[in-house]
């Protein structure tokens, strides 16, 4: 469980990240139980069965982690989940852009929002290099997606200024 650092002192394993799934599982299961407490047995039977096992498993994991922390072999650090590389690699910014994409695609439409998302996230991940190439690539894929999904397959993707303009032209 404990690795050695360069100076030879034992390195504690960060287990904070590993606790996220069990803790969220516990919280969700308890919330789920609260929604079925007054329901007929048909709504309860399998959920109580599965939920009880999930609670037992999650609590076992939490207790095991607490024991490791107490015996100085681990800590609650989140290094295994979040670190400096998430900022330096651009991961965190791409996540925020994805969030923006999901929120804005209904307003901006598929083609325009996809272009903006692809262009900005590729530019961030490439650390600002080759903006012209990235713009061309983003435009190509956004327009290709428009041609395939909206024009050819007639999928009802979110419509925005670009789609409305093309509809009036065609």
């Amino acid at each position: 469980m404990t690795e050695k650092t360069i100076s030879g002192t034992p390195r504690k394993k960060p287990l904070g990240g590993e606790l996220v799934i069990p803790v969220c599982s516990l919280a969700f299961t308890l919330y789920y139980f609260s929604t079925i407490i007054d329901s007929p047995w048909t709504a309860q039977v399998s959920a109580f069965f599965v939920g009880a096992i999930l609670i037992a498993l999650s609590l076992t994991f939490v207790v095991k982690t607490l024991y490791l922390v107490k015996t100085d072999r681990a800590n609650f650090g989140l290094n295994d989940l979040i670190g400096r590389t998430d900022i330096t690699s651009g991961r965190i910014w791409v996540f925020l852009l994805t969030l923006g994409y999901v929120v804005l695609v209904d307003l901006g439409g598929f083609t325009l929002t996809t272009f903006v998302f692809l262009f900005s996230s590729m530019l961030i991940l490439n650390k600002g290099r080759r903006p012209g190439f990235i713009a061309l690539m983003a435009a190509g894929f956004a327009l290709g997606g428009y041609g395939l999904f909206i024009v050819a397959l007639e999928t009802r993707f979110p419509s925005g200024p670009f789609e409305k303009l093309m509809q009036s032209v065609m």
Partner: protein
Amino acid sequence: MELPLDLFGSLFLHTLSFWWVIIPTIFLGLLVGAIPGFSAANTIIILLPLTLAMEIETGLIFMVTLYCASRMGAGIPAILVNIPGTAGAAATPLDGYPMTKAGRGQEALAMSFVASALGGLLTTVIALAAMPLLAEVSYYMHSVEMIIIMLFGISLIASIAARDTLKGLIAGFLGLMIGAIGTDVVYATPRGTMGFLELYDGVPLIPALVGLFAVSEAFLVVDQKLILTDEGVAVSHSSGWGPTIEGTKIALKRWWHITWNSIIGLIIGIIPGAGASIASFVAYQQSRTYSKTPELYGTGHPEGLIAPESANNGVTAGTLIPLLILGIPGGATAAVMLVVMQYQGVTLGPSLFDLRPELGYGVFMAMAVTYFLMIFTILPLSRYMSRVTLIRTTYLSPMIIAFTLVGSFVPREYMFDMALGLVFGVIGYIARKTGYHVAAILIGIILGPLLETFFLRALKMSDGDIMVLFSSNLGNILWVALFVTFIAPMVLDRFFNRDKKTP
């Protein structure tokens, strides 16, 4: 219903003359199968005006080809970028993606294509030969038997958990709990929906699939140059046609494995309500259980890739048997085909094979010809398709995120589903970073609601008597088979005196 063997030869050649419909449709099917959200059923619905305008024979060949090709297409992104195109390919990346990371993507694709085509071809021939007998399978499969079949699939969670028991089980049971979101099947009581009306029908599969596999993977690889390992890059750059030939040889050498797993797919496909996802999980689990090297599964083992691919292509023939003989569609695509056939005035049932044998048998012949042509058209492409892995992740990741999230919008056309895809992406990212298996979560989400439905149905029919689970002969045989599945690894382990160390 006697088999008109003399008709089959002429029907095969006649169907082959429709190559001009089949070959372009193969490529369309591969494309729609590879994009999460665009299933064959959706595409047939979208192209319904075109299909209805065609001659009945051409329309049927078009639909069958699209169905088979999309099934094969779903495995391509699963192998190359860890994104199953449909839930039926959810077990494919377990061993396909590790092969790609090691620079064996081309070999894995070749293996998958051969296993899919041979599995599909073989089950089509079996379906043609034993159709009346196979049609009766659906009569004997009631809720109790379905519960046991689901348990076969769910037991895969235990196998995944073998590497880290506690984490594997937490992931699997979390999946089952998420799968229980939505209204209950008897009184429609909303459960765990957090107030979202969009979750009343349960958690939609495509956003879960997209998020857990595609979005999480895209976030994970952004700090790498390529998705391949360093050794994988070296192998990939030095490859010509060799890996395609090698992959083909590996698959052909495992012909018995393909046969066995495609028959599992065929039988599960016949059962209405079951489908490719169940078939592929059950096949993977069975393959692992009876393998001499179960510890290699999940690390890029050929048999771990061949099993789900041959099974999910075996399902295609299976779903059409109850459709043609009983008029009961075995899956979503078969249901859409039913609508088209009824519109064209085709009466389904045993009489179809006497009155219009060219249509009844023609459907399976179209399937056989499609798989036959697919081997020659798709196999050479494996060399070029595998080049996707050489695209830098700085370009690949944003494209995966954008197009798969939009794909999660397609089946229901709710903006909510795109947000749900992102939520599952975050869950998948946290799970991968901290050592929880996303496949275990997905198995729970896919099979959990089905298991609950059949369980409640069985209990309702028996007035709450739990002993109903042991009330049928076939069910009891399946219980024994399930029990054997659990103890077989231990017995085989002693027999082969295997080294139990997991990698």
